[in-house]
């Protein structure tokens, strides 16, 4: 229980941190769009916040890995799109493409006049090539982890849990409690391990994408992704409430915020 509370506040801290970061990113875009050094600094700061969050989460997940796969603090909508306890890395590609596209349609005329804005609409040929190569890598890595995850899930229906259940006289009886606990602990540990792998991949992909982008584009991209995550959370929360799912109402108050853990 205590662990759950910690996990919850870790999450809440992270969301508050992201709100602050978003603010800062947006201000950077407005006030210092031509200062690549400052923008680079912003990006670096953001990445280190990511790393902090992952580190904190790793500590907690070690104790209860499975709790991060459909967390109680996520909305039903959010949880339905989780991939191994977080966002699917390939979302990054979509997000870049859609941002690039929306800029480009807006500014196609300007483009022909030789106006360069340097934003995500100005993805160059070399960048597009790198993004496409990254896309190939992401799909490959994602599929690899997905496959490992699948094997992990399948193990539920195998030795020892399946046979322990089969041999029970009464459903859920606790005569074999120790064996059951040992098996479930082992499984939880495996879940923790793959969660770590997935988090590593998520961060790695994010860093690679940022390396491809210019500082301005990177800040724009980070701002957009935070906006998306935060907005989705709010939107889906109100949908949950409408449907009578109120578990999140109690976690509504981000009073425990105050910097990354």
């Amino acid at each position, binding site marked *: 229980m205590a662990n759950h509370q910690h996990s919850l506040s870790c999450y809440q801290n992270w969301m508050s941190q992201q709100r602050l970061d978003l603010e800062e990113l947006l201000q950077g875009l407005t006030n210092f769009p031509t200062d690549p050094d400052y923008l680079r600094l912003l990006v670096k700061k953001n990445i280190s916040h990511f790393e902090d969050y992952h580190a904190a989460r790793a500590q907690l997940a070690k104790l209860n890995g499975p709790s991060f796969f459909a967390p109680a603090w996520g909305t039903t909508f959010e949880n339905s*799109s989780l*991939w191994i306890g977080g966002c*699917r890395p*390939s*979302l990054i590609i*979509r997000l870049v*493409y859609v941002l*690039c*596209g*929306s800029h*480009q*349609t807006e500014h*196609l005329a300007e*483009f*022909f*006049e*030789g106006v*360069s804005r*340097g934003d995500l609409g*100005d*993805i*160059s*040929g*070399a*960048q*597009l*090539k*790198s*993004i*496409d*190569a990254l*896309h*190939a890598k992401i*799909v*490959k890595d*994602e*599929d690899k982890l*997905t*496959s490992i995850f*699948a094997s992990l899930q399948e193990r539920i229906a195998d030795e020892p849990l399946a046979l322990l259940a089969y041999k029970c006289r009464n459903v859920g009886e606790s005569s074999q409690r120790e064996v059951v606990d040992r098996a479930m602990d082992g499984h939880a540990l495996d879940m923790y391990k793959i969660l770590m792998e997935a988090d590593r991949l998520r961060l790695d992909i994010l860093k690679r994408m940022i*390396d*491809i*982008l*210019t500082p301005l584009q990177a800040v724009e991209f980070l701002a957009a992704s935070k906006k998306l995550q935060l907005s989705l959370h709010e939107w889906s929360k109100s949908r949950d409430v409408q449907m009578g799912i109120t578990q999140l109402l109690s976690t509504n108050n981000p009073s425990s915020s105050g910097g990354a853990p």
Partner: protein
Amino acid sequence: MAEICCGVVSENEASSACESNSKATRRKRMDLRRVNFVPTIEKENGVKQARLSISPASFSRDCNNNCNTTELKPKLKRKPDDEGDEIEVDGAKPVPLVAAIFRPSGSAVFVDGEKVPKFGVASVCGRRRDMEDAVAIHPSFLTVENDRTSGVHYFGVYDGHGCSHVATRCKDRLHLLVKEELNKKLELTTEWAKTMERSFNRMDKEVVDWNKGTVGGNCRCELQAPESDAVGSTAVVAITTPDKIIVANCGDSRAVLCRNGKAVPLSSDHKPDRPDELNRIQAAGGRVIYWEGARVLGVLAMSRAIGDNYLKPYVICEPEVTITDRAGDDECLIIASDGLWDVVSNDTACGVARMCLKGKGPPASMKTPVENNEEPGSEKWDKACSDASMLLTKLALARRSSDNVSVVVIDLRKK
């Protein structure tokens, strides 16, 4: 919803559907996947498919280790140390084949002599998870010592469906087949149509035979025989000579000539609801069923393709060939997969390409991190054509193309 349907069209067109009357569940799964608009829904065990590889003669990356590729290209011997830019053909003196079609862009040229075409390529996976497009470019692809054949360049775009391996085979083989067929002739200028037909036919036969050969194979693309019968590819091939443009097309990729500011299509898409194609299919005893667009037997959203053995004789591999005399006011030729044409009209594409060729492309000053130290051979590229192909690709992505996008732009202006 209308919007979503627009976005979906290209995927649907690429192939297949979910008919219930035939074939294995596996193919059905594949079909479902293709009409699936939301790619983030993970299909079971993360189906892996091949991607465009870098070297011109090699098989695609993911199939590389597993598919038996050697048996059908005994004549190709890769030199040990090169990066795939050169191929030794049949023990003859090395013919510089260019080619290296990098993903997504690239257009390197090192052909001796002055008859070097200017072109640019962009080819990206886009919003799909699988890359099924392939591009082949072979400047001066005929035997070099033969005078009559200098200045003849080969450009091909192949858009695979079901898996990428038919498209990849086309990329590796079709130009060689065309070359063989051409070398049988004394006069290059005659019988282009026959030559292309024969080449496409042989290509189709190779693909079908090869599929048969993979029974019990270990190709990871999960479309082993007999399901591999359900794999195919479009092929649009443009051959430019000093005075002509020959376009052979099979499927729904397209070649468009930009002449004096106007778009002149040099190929006509093979759609099942094109009246003459519909008649041909029905005459052969087939049916066209509307299932998210017109589809042959409710499955394939094009009426001609290389491969797709299971839909014969309704789907045929015979190309339509156009021969166009080059004119002084020809600007460029655009060859692309339907990932572009689904969302960008011929006229818009020509407009964009023209602008780039006129030097209004992205400003050179706009340097990005990856641009500064990459692509040492970039001076060999044609910047304007590359910009054009890249911009068209970006435009397709911007307009929510949901398919792979491959674009080749060839500068036709007289120097």
